């Protein structure tokens, strides 16, 4: 009952975000929001950019890549020298080069894959200046690119797609900063910690046990971690840690905030292309996928854990408790898990490695669909638009005429670019997983044996190539092999999609609009929603079914055996 109410509250909250946050985003990127112009104007002056001057897609992409290169280098330097930097009350040493490389790439690409335990590896300086910095900017860049791609679809009569510097600054100061600050206040009021003092000793006066617990500047980092679909926690236990996610309310707000911007972007799409029905069609496709996966995961997690049942403990109405926090419960944890894996967030309020086989299947397959339901901040929107191009292409083949999307002719170049953007992720996942299971350096990683160990490896590359960042936590990832291959997967997953999407936007922006005729394939009705869903599920399904069959599916089917 309370689960049903949680879902209803989430739907209502997201509907409000869709309408109002969506309208706000449109205003921000059209330059109509100006309450921080005393901050914004000097930034443009220092950058030497005219906020009204737009860039071609090549310049936009070059700016994004250059900016990414500089920020990732700065973060790498911070991490490998943190032992000499301030705000380090625990006197933690420098991060090793391989781990620093993996971590810097991970936060740059909005992945937030963590091959380390936060409270025992990263100084407060690294957490704030190194990681939180990227949590804002990777989200702002993703958001800006999504808007730039939408500009390509919108009929604006010019071949440019916006100004990278302006989009990034606006997204940061008008969207992410204020929202995070408000969210951070709620988190700290609920009991998330936020201090610059070091660990404290806590004393249990009843049993006489004394323990030392790590603290840190957590609450406000937590806010941007969720809002920017980042997911990299301050503590190793991520959102399961009571100091990061103390109550049912913070758990709910985490889900709401990580879904809010990706959902609102469909409103932005509808408004900017001038046909709200087009945005609603995309939102509907996202919602159907998301709903189906929530149903599967929460049902699966409400079942008894097979190992625990085999050992001899079952209780009617008590689901899979291994790896779950009592204050959240099984179904809410599953809802969180699906929200986090299907938005490329990757935060976790429970141990995904200990989900039932079908629960784990829901999490990994949610990522395999390409992170489009609703996907990460910005990246979900531009990736689903690539799928939409493929869908109209297939629709065009069926009716035998050149396809159009929003009045723009979809020709060989656009289909090729969309094809690259859609296929680069599965290629990276499958090749790197194949490499890991054939090399000793890869097969020593998993904690669990048998198919579950295979799933740990497959999950790691799926998560990193989709810029998700959640993990089947048993995998030991802090080795040179996993640090380097993981970083490659994350870079491919970010820029292998982002650059084709921008190229597509540039190519579409230059095209004239063809008025819709009788033979035009409509993209704002249920037929198109069905076709889009079909493309997403068939691409993901056909590509990954063999791998899934070796992992979660065989695990589910082999009842009565344990490894």
């Amino acid at each position, binding site marked *: 009952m309370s689960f049903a109410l949680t879902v209803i509250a989430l739907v209502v909250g997201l509907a409000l975000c869709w309408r109002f946050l969506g309208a706000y985003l449109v205003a921000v990127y059209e330059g109509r929001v100006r309450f921080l112009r005393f901050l914004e104007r000097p930034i443009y002056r220092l950058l030497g950019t005219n906020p009204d001057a737009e860039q071609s897609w090549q310049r936009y992409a070059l700016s994004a890549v250059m900016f990414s290169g500089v920020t990732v280098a700065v973060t790498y330097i911070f991490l490998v020298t943190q032992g000499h930097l301030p705000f380090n009350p625990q006197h933690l040493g420098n991060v090793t080069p391989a781990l620093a490389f993996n971590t810097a790439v991970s936060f740059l690409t909005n992945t937030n894959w963590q091959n380390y335990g936060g409270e025992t590896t990263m100084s407060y300086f690294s957490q*704030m200046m190194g990681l939180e*910095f990227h949590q804002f900017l990777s989200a702002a860049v993703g958001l800006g690119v999504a808007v730039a791609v939408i500009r390509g679809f919108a009929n604006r009569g010019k071949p440019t797609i916006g100004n990278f510097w302006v989009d990034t600054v606006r997204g940061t100061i008008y969207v992410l900063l204020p929202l995070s600050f408000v969210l951070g206040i709620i988190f700290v009021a609920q009991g998330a910690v*936020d*201090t610059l003092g070091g660990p404290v000793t806590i004393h249990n006066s009843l049993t006489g046990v004394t323990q030392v617990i790590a603290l840190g500047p957590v609450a406000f980092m937590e806010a941007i971690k969720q809002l920017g679909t980042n997911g990299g926690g301050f503590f190793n236990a991520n959102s399961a840690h009571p100091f990061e996610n103390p109550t049912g309310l913070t758990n709910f707000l985490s889900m709401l905030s990580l879904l809010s911007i990706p959902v609102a972007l469909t409103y932005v799409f509808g408004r900017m292309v001038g046909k709200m029905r087009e945005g609603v069609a995309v939102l509907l496709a996202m919602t159907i996928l998301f709903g189906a996966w929530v149903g599967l995961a929460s049902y699966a997690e409400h079942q008894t854990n097979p190992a625990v049942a085999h050992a001899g403990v079952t209780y009617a109405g008590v689901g899979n408790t291994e790896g779950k926090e009592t204050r959240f419960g099984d179904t809410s944890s599953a809802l969180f898990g699906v929200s986090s894996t299907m938005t490329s967030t990757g935060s976790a309020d429970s141990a995904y490695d200990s989900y039932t086989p079908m629960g784990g299947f829901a999490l990994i397959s949610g990522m395999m669909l390409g992170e489009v339901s609703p996907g990460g901040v910005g990246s979900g929107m531009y990736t689903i638009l690539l799928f939409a191009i493929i869908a109209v292409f297939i629709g065009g083949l069926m009716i035998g005429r050149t396809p159009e999307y929003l009045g723009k002719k979809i020709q060989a170049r656009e289909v090729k670019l969309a094809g690259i953007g859609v296929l680069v992720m599965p290629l990276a996942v499958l090749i790197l997983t194949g490499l890991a299971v054939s090399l000793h350096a890869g097969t020593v990683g998993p904690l*669990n044996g048998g198919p579950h160990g295979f799933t740990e490896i497959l999950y790691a590359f799926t998560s990193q190539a989709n810029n998700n960042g959640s993990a089947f936590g048993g995998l030991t990832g802090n080795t040179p092999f996993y640090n380097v291959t993981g970083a490659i997967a994350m870079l491919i997953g970010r820029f292998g999609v982002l650059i084709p999407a921008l190229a597509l936007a540039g190519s579409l922006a230059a095209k004239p609009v063809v008025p819709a005729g009788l033979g035009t394939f409509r993209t704002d009705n249920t037929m198109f929603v069905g076709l889009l869903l079909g493309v997403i599920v068939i691409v993901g399904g056909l590509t990954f079914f063999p791998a899934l069959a070796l992992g979660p599916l065989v695990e589910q089917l082999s009842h009565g055996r344990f490894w």
Partner: protein
Amino acid sequence: MRTAIYRSFVLTAIMLVIVGAAYPLAGWAFAQATFTHQADGSLGSNGSSLIGQPWNSGTSINPQWFNGRPDADNPLSVNGVAGESSAANLGPRSAVLVTSVRALIKEWRAVGVSPTPDLVTTSGSGIDPDISPLDARVQVPMVSKARHIPAARLYQLIAQQTRGPQWGFLGSSYVNVLSLNEALSTLRP
């Protein structure tokens, strides 16, 4: 190309100041000014933290108290240095999990308790400070016998200590083990 590199450095510097330093420090200052207690870990006057303190820390079951969920084999602190919070990460068909659950069942049966799944499984953080009301109720005969307190009074105590779901629907019902035991320590047979 050169303008792009120049602007990248400038924007990096600006944003390091705004989102890398000013945002977290402003948040920290705000938190310390308005919610000092929570921001510092909700520490009580007796040095305990109801939010972040697990009841169990590698110790075996004590029938004098209500016991929490098992430790995820990852000590919270080693030699006075804060350790890493972590789940056990064992898979749903793990033989290791079966063995560890069986060992815990044996421990619980030895003190006359038929354990619930929570009491034999580790949590997501490994330091879950809470148990469900059901987990507390199954321990009542054990505590009642050890302390000579009538079971009815313990059930009543559990009911008083039960919290959540927050706002009636967010999350699950739970009992904070430390808070429950602090209340228990004031009861006399």
